[in-house]
Structures are given as structure tokens and as C-alpha cells.
């Protein structure tokens, strides 16, 4: 039972949405004059989405946000000459990709439509098995860089070295950024204390069961209010709540100086995921500030088949527990014990029990078991990442290796 993903601006007074015969439900992003204010799930009735239902649901779920937006429309903003001349920093958009030319084409088309445009768009082709990615890039005004060492974090590190902008904004090849994505990510950087900005990630499509399950159990959405994160507000061990690699911007100098993306982590390595989480952890634990802004929207194409979902959940689980073990063993974060066990009991065991007693919307056994499998694999994965780290240190790749930790 597929669902339609819709993007509607309430200020434009949308009427009934017709032509939804193939769908049972709709997932609607609600905006007001371009700014996202919330999302709602609605039933499709006779192939259309009635405007009355939409307004009713919008009022019920997001009435407060709509009230504030309407009040803003009614009151003109007093025009005062600005005090400061702070302009937005220059930015490089970096896409790290591996053998997904079709996704990449959609992503680049969106990036080339950004308003205002990016100073530079950089594609890092990570250990490609053929020339398809290179040929897609020839169709767009982008810079193409080939990184032959396999690993997402290796590609991210390479991107930061190659980039010329003050800020580097990362997105994934399976994400489609909104037209205003980059601008929204850059606005918080006006404040010198902000080290990184993350954005809202929503599903591009929900055409298969796999995609719906993905959105339900590991969607990236972090809500519709701007949030500030620092070590005083959340534990750096909760860095996964800060955002996701599909939509994040970081001051480039920090990426290079801190060696923020440890090359032995994330996709393409034994740790499988979590390179972005570890980067956020490092930033938070070193006293930096990260802002989450829902105004920066990227649409992520979730994996289609349920089997892929199992694989993704397992890899997230491995990445999370490699991250926690690493923090505990090498960064003296004793809180990692509590977080690790807490997550295991509060999520994995709880979901198993809920399923066992037949609760609705409990996570399917298969998914939870895959996650538990990931937890059990994590010590071995950590060992392998450490071995890889050491071999990198010894090997001739030191030129590309980021600074080591103190």
C-alpha cells in the first residue's frame, strides 16, 4: 500500500489534490510561504485528497505554527537599516557517491537548481567500478574528483581537502535537496560560534513497503523547530539526534583541522555507518555548537526492498555500537555504558517484547533481530576498524590522513 508524498504551501490555499488513485494514504509536508511548519498523514479518498481534511489535520496538529505564521502575515516588519554587514559564508556542496548514477543525476539536477546557487559543487566518486558516475557529471557544471580508496568518510575527507568554500555542505547521492536548502543551511553560520548546521530530511517517495518501513523505523526527521545543540544541552553521546549526513554543513577548516571524518569509519568499512555521528560527537565534546534547522529540506530516497532495510538497520546498529565502544574505550566517556545498555534494553528488548505480545506498530521481529545482530557484531567491527586505522598510519596513505587525536 504505497503512500504519496506531497509538498503543499498552505499560504497558497491549495484545493483538493486529485489523481491519487494509486495510493491509500498521503504524507504531506506543510509549508507557509516556503517555510516548513509540519507534516501530516492523511487518507486518500476516491483518488483525491480533500482540502477540508487537509486544513482540519493541519489545524489539529500544527495549529500553533499556522497561527503564528498568519499573525506574521498581518504585521509588517519594521524596516530598519541593518547594523552589521555579515554576509553568508561561501559554500561548497559536496556529494560523495559510489556507483549510483541514476540517484546522482537527480541529486545534481536539484543542486544545480539551488537559489542562490552554490559557489561550487563537488562530486567525489568513491572507488567507482565503472565510468558511469563520471559521465553523469559531464552533464552538469560540477567539479568531479575521483577518490580510489573505498570508504564514505575517506570521500568526505577528500571533499573537504578539495573544497574552496568556507563551509562545506554535504549531501548524499540518494538525497534531493530543496531549492532553498543551501541558503537555509548557511544562515545560522552568521553566528561565529556555530560550527555545523544540519537540516530536515524527509522521504522522497513511499512507493514500496520497504520505504514505508524505513520511514517508520529509521526516518531522519528531527522535527519542525530550530534547535541548538551543545555539550550543555545534550550529551555528546546522543550525537545521533543532531542530524544526518544527508544534510549537514560544517566549517571546512574544522573538518580539516580536527580530521573530523575518521577514515576508518562509516560506509565502506567494518563499522558500516556512524561516521557522521562520530563527527557530531567530536564537535560537541570539544565545545562546539551545532544548529538544526528544519528550513533546510532534503528529500531522501529510501531503499526500496525490505531486504535492503534489514541490511541498513543492521549497519546502523553496528555503527552506533562501534561509536559507543570507541567513546568508552578511547575517549573516557563512561556514560557510554549507560547509553549502550539503555538503548539495548529500552529499544531492542522492548521492541521484541512488544511484538511478542502483539502490540500494533511494534517493530517486526526481523528488523529487531537484525539490529541485535548488529550490536553483537560491533566489538569485532571495532577491532577491524582499529586494525585498519593502524595500517593506514603505517601505510603510505599518510598524506591524506587527517590529524591524529591527542
Amino acid at each position, binding site marked *: 500500500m504505497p503512500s504519496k508524498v506531497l509538498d503543499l504551501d498552505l499560504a497558497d490555499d491549495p484545493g483538493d489534490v486529485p489523481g491519487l488513485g494509486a495510493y491509500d494514504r498521503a504524507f504531506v509536508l506543510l509549508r507557509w510561504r516556503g517555510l516548513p511548519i509540519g507534516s501530516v498523514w492523511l487518507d486518500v479518498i476516491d483518488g483525491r485528497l480533500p482540502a477540508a481534511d487537509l*486544513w482540519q489535520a493541519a489545524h489539529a496538529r500544527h495549529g500553533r505554527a*499556522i497561527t503564528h505564521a*498568519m499573525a506574521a502575515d498581518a504585521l509588517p516588519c519594521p524596516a530598519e*537599516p541593518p547594523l552589521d554587514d555579515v554576509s553568508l559564508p561561501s559554500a561548497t556542496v559536496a556529494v560523495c557517491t559510489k556507483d549510483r548514477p541514476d540517484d546522482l543525476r537527480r541529486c545534481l539536477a536539484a543542486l544545480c537548481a539551488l537559489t542562490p546557487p552554490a559557489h561550487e559543487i563537488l562530486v567525489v566518486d568513491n572507488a567507482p567500478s565503472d565510468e558511469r558516475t563520471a559521465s553523469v557529471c559531464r552533464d552538469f557544471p560540477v567539479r568531479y574528483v575521483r577518490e580510489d580508496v573505498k570508504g564514505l568518510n575517506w570521500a568526505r575527507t577528500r571533499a573537504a581537502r578539495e573544497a574552496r568554500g568556507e563551509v562545506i555542505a554535504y549531501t548524499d547521492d540518494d538525497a534531493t535537496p530543496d531549492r532553498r536548502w543551501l541558503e537555509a543551511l548557511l544562515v545560522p553560520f552568521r*553566528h561565529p560560534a556555530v560550527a555545523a548546521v544540519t537540516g530536515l530530511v524527509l522521504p522522497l517517495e513511499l512507493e514500496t513497503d520497504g520505504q514505508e518501513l524505513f520511514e517508520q523505523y529509521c526516518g531522519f526527521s528531527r522535527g519542525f523547530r530550530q534547535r541548538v545543540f551543545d*555539550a550543555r544541552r545534550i550529551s555528546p553521546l546522543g550525537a545521533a539526534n543532531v542530524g544526518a549526513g544527508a544534510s549537514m554543513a560544517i566549517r571546512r577548516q574544522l573538518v580539516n583541522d*580536527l580530521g573530523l571524518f575518521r577514515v576508518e569509519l562509516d560506509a565502506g568499512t567494518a563499522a558500516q555507518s556512524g561516521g557522521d555521528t562520530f563527527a557530531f560527537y567530536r564537535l560537541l565534546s570539544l565545545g562546539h555548537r551545532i544548529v538544526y534547522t528544519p528550513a533546510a529540506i532534503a528529500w531522501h530516497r529510501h531503499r526500496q526492498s525490505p531486504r535492503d532495510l534489514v541490511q541498513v538497520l543492521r549497519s546502523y546498529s553496528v555503527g552506533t555500537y562501534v561509536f559507543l565502544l570507541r567513546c568508552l574505550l578511547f*575517549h*573516557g566517556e563512561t556514560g557510554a555504558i549507560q547509553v549502550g545498555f539503555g538503548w539495548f534494553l529500552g529499544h531492542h528488548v522492548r521492541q521484541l517484547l512488544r511484538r511478542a505480545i502483539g502490540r500494533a506498530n511494534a517493530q517486526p521481529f526481523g528488523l529487531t533481530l537484525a539490529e541485535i545482530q548488529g550490536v553483537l557484531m560491533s566489538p569485532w567491527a571495532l577491532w577491524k576498524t582499529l586494525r585498519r586505522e593502524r595500517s593506514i598510519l603505517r601505510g603510505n596513505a599518510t598524506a591524506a590522513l587527517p590529524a591524529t587525536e591527542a
Partner: protein
Amino acid sequence: MPRISIVIPTHRGASRIGPTLAALASQTLPHGDFEVIVVLDGPDPATRQVIAAAQPPFTITVVEQDHAGAAQARNRGAAAARSPLLLFLDDDMSAVPGLLSAHLRSHERHPDGVVLGCFTQPRAGHRVDLLADGADAWWADHFAQLALPSHRFSFRDFCTGNVSLPRERFVDAGGFSTEFKQAAGEDYELGIRLLRLGVRFRFALDALSVHRYAASWAKSLERAREEGRGHVIIARLHPEVFPALSLRDAVEDGPVLKGDRPLRLTPLRLAAAPALLHAPLRMARALKLRRQWQKLQGASRVCAYWEGACQQAGSWSALQSLVQDMPLVPIAHHEIEFDLATGFDQLTPALTAAAVDAIRLRYGPQPIGRIAPQAGAESLRTAHVRHALLGRLAPRFLAARAPLDRGRHAQREHTLVESTALGSAG
């Protein structure tokens, strides 16, 4: 004649002043357009030598006084200044190249006000430092607040690290009070007098300097003690700002340690606190248990604050009676009523005609709400009222407006307001 005079007080600052002067040497503003006045607070041959050796490319004047505190030093520096604009800079601040131009530009755009600069406290490399985390986050939050167009400036926003104002205004207000010897708060106190003169405060995000600051636990506690002493002095001089000081926490049952279970502080408990908290603090820090660390260090700082306040008041009972005598509501304020049906653009003239501290808003016959006076804050501006109308007053504002207006959304707004009202009632 220079366009701006930079006053830098320093006390035994030989190790700090070098980078500060070097940063001023690489300003985008031509060297002839500014002068630097370093005030040595107490005889200090070492610092004198550093300054002489630096040979800065701009005019630099060194003033020396017997050790009398930073407030006195800043007054001396201001007296020696030749330009119409003063910039107070701390001796551990490195100006970014555009700092002076940014201050000047702000004063050109909005003459006759105070321009508050911004600073960052960058961390060196890979060191995890729980103590610095708290201070950094506090400053970052502070500047984020100041940058909001709807921020209502108060005396607590006036900090001397990086701030500029016309010398004339500084003189009108009477300069820094020299009563604050072992106490912090002479900047707040001047802020109170400047606001009372009707001087506008503004914040310039690009008037940026880098604070080369090394946090230490002892310094942090001493700072809390100084604040306690300073707040008592401020409360005695200006009782009307008492509600905006942390001292007001003591009004109900004396000083309280806030928390899940509030703990009433007594002289005995205050005396025992450092010894009791020491070991848990060290443990929380070593194990990186941040939440526990924050609670414990917050408690220690609160205790140090009350210790300082108690010292300044003279005794525990003197502090208690001082606090009990303070007013909790603003004593005298100017309040107006405004009808939004006359048009929102009529609000600015109404607010500029006289200094307004509080406002009652209505739409035709419908009351919408009130913006209360705030102790020690600037008078109301249009941006404050707009912010309140977009925020907490939005539902009533829209409800009052809907029946009168015949806009396209009128009916919809009406139903919306009803549904939100129902929602909030449920």
C-alpha cells in the same frame, strides 16, 4: 584626529597585551584613524617593556595609575582619549581585522548609541574541557539572544570586553563607578545609567573579537563570588533593577539551591559546600559525566555567589534584610494603551513620542494583552511588540482581527482560532 580611541586596561598583562596589540596592527581601518590607550593598573615595567618592544604602527599612549581596579583604569583611559568614539577592549581580546571598521560603521548608521561587539572563545585543538563548555555555551547563547531583532536590551547586556560608545555619552553618564573594588558589575551599573539616559543599545555581529581565555575552576568560583558582591552594590545603588538580579531568588525563604529538590542555603551549608562538593566534582569531571558535572558546578557557583553577596552585605542577616526591603515590581513606569485597529504602522510614532515601558494592546473594543514593564530594560520598540503579537498574543490578535477584516483568509482564520482555542482548552 583619530576617529576612534581604543581603551585597554591591563593588570599585570605582560603576557596578554602582545597579541592584542598585534591584532590591532592588522586592522582594515587605516592606522591613522585610530589610537590605542593602554592603562596600566598598578606600576608594571614588564608590560611597559612589551609595549615598547612591540613598536605598533598606530598611535599608542600608555597611562599608569596606582592599582585601583579596571573601572578606574577605564575612566583614566577615556579621559586621555582624543576621538569622539570610545571602544573598550579587554587585554585578552584579539580583534578580527574588521573590528574597528564594524564599530565605526554601526555608529555611522545609528549615531549616538552603544554598540555591543561579539566575541568567540575558540578551543585549542582536541582538548575536552567540561569547564570551558559551560562558559562557551553561555556566551554563545548570550550573543544569539542579542542578535534577535526582538531582543529587549537590558543593563545585563552591557559588558566591557568589546563595546563602543560616544565619549560624550560616557561623560554624560558619569563614567564607571569606582565602588566595585573586589566586585564584578561596574559594567552592569554603567549600563543602568546609560539606559536611564535613553541611550540605545545595539549589537553588531561583525564587530568580532577572539577572547583568548583559559577557564580555570578557581577563577570561575572567584568570578561567582565577585558577582555576588557586585550585585549587592548594584541593588543598593539602584533598587529598581533588583528583580533582574539573581539576588531576587532569596526573596521567599532566603537563598535556595534550585534543583529537583530545592535546598535552602544556610551559613553553615554555604561554609560546608566547597569541601562536600570537591570530590564529587572531580569524579564527575574525570568520568566525563557531564550532567552530574553541570549540576555540581552550578551548585558550587551558586554557593560562591551567595558567599560573595553575604560578604558585601556584611553578614547573613544583613543580606536577608537587604533582600526583604527590595521592590519586586518596577516602581514607576510609563504605560500606554494602543489600538491595533488604527494600523500597526501607527505604533512606531506612539513608541517614539515618549519612552514606553509597558503597553496594553487592543483591537477595536477587543483587548489582546499586555507587555509588562521589565526591570532594568530599555523602553519598548516596535520589534518587541511585533514579537509578542506573533508569539504568545497571536491567537487573540487573530481572533480579534477576523470579524472586522474581510480578507481572503478571514473566515478560515476564525475557524482556526476556534480550533486552537479548543485544543488549548482540552
